[in-house]
């Protein structure tokens, strides 16, 4: 895994080669742990399965590459005024149609035990706006909200089939 490579094309790549594509034959029996990329936005600690992550590059470079960029807080309300990101990163999502979600920066990569993951409580599981949140990883230091970026993408497609304007709607991010 590499952060800050000189060519800046990829700031992060999954550690292991031969990674499964998301959803391809994962079985809990195969592993007791899930590797997640952790990042924080709006004071919330969020995590995404590293299998869904194709890489992390500066957002302006992703824009220059013509990649679809989705400001995270535009897809899921973060409960407070979106913070202004000084040097946002584009978290590239492995999908049929690659796209990127704008985040502040990746904070960590953690292995969490499957038995420390809890589903959302019923009242939240019933909430449409929380569809992209699939569970919670419970740790001593606090909890990590687990996001499924493929579901986020589905929500995105449902809500907006037109090409996405990049950022700065409401001054959320600056490249």
């Amino acid at each position: 895994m590499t952060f800050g490579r000189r060519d800046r094309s990829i700031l992060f790549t999954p550690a292991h080669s031969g990674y499964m594509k998301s959803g391809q034959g994962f079985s809990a029996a195969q592993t007791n742990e899930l590797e997640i990329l952790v990042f924080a936005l709006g004071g919330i600690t969020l995590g995404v399965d590293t299998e869904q992550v194709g890489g992390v590059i500066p957002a302006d470079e992703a824009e220059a590459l013509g990649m679809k960029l989705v400001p995270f807080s535009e897809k899921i309300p973060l409960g407070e005024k979106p913070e202004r990101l000084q040097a946002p990163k584009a978290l590239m999502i492995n999908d049929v149609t690659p796209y990127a979600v704008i985040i502040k920066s990746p904070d960590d990569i953690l292995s969490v035990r499957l038995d420390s993951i809890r589903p959302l409580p019923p009242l939240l599981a019933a909430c449409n706006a929380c569809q992209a949140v699939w569970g919670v990883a419970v740790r001593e230091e606090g909890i990590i909200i687990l996001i499924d970026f493929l579901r986020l993408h589905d929500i995105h497609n449902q809500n907006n089939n037109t090409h996405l304007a990049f950022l700065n709607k409401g001054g959320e991010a600056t490249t």
Partner: protein
Amino acid sequence: METQQSKSKLILDELRSREKREKILDVEEDTIKVVIFSLLDGLYAFNGPEVKEILPLLPRYYVPGSPDFIPGVINIRGDIESVININSLLGLPDSKPSPKSRIAILEMGSVRSGIIVDSVEDVIDIPESFVKPPLTTLSSKVREYVAGELMYQDRNVTLLDMRRIFGRLGS
């Protein structure tokens, strides 16, 4: 005069006897347990058996996209439970957290959630007949969530219908 006294005595005896019978009836009447709590200036109650636990305020974690009345989730010994801000459901302004604030964990069927209250005042058993229909002065939005009214220390207490609230929130 003696006849008059006897009559009054008889009436008083009869009244006492009726009072005793009523007391006996009261004792035999089914009782319900209620947990009385405060929100701002008002007193409210949960149906006792639905309250599984009462906890101090715990660190709360916001879940992106969650509705206004669910300000987050809490970690209870490794289990994650939602927390409801009941003020917003009842059309009340938000309460300020204080050392008396509590989270009551309620469970009905498969749904379990915490409710933030300003303080827990008492847990009492009352005859079912003490619960009166909801006040007609309540707004229709709030009345929907109210099972009835009762008196506690000369104050009116609103008994919430949490089954209906959970049903509405979960739908």
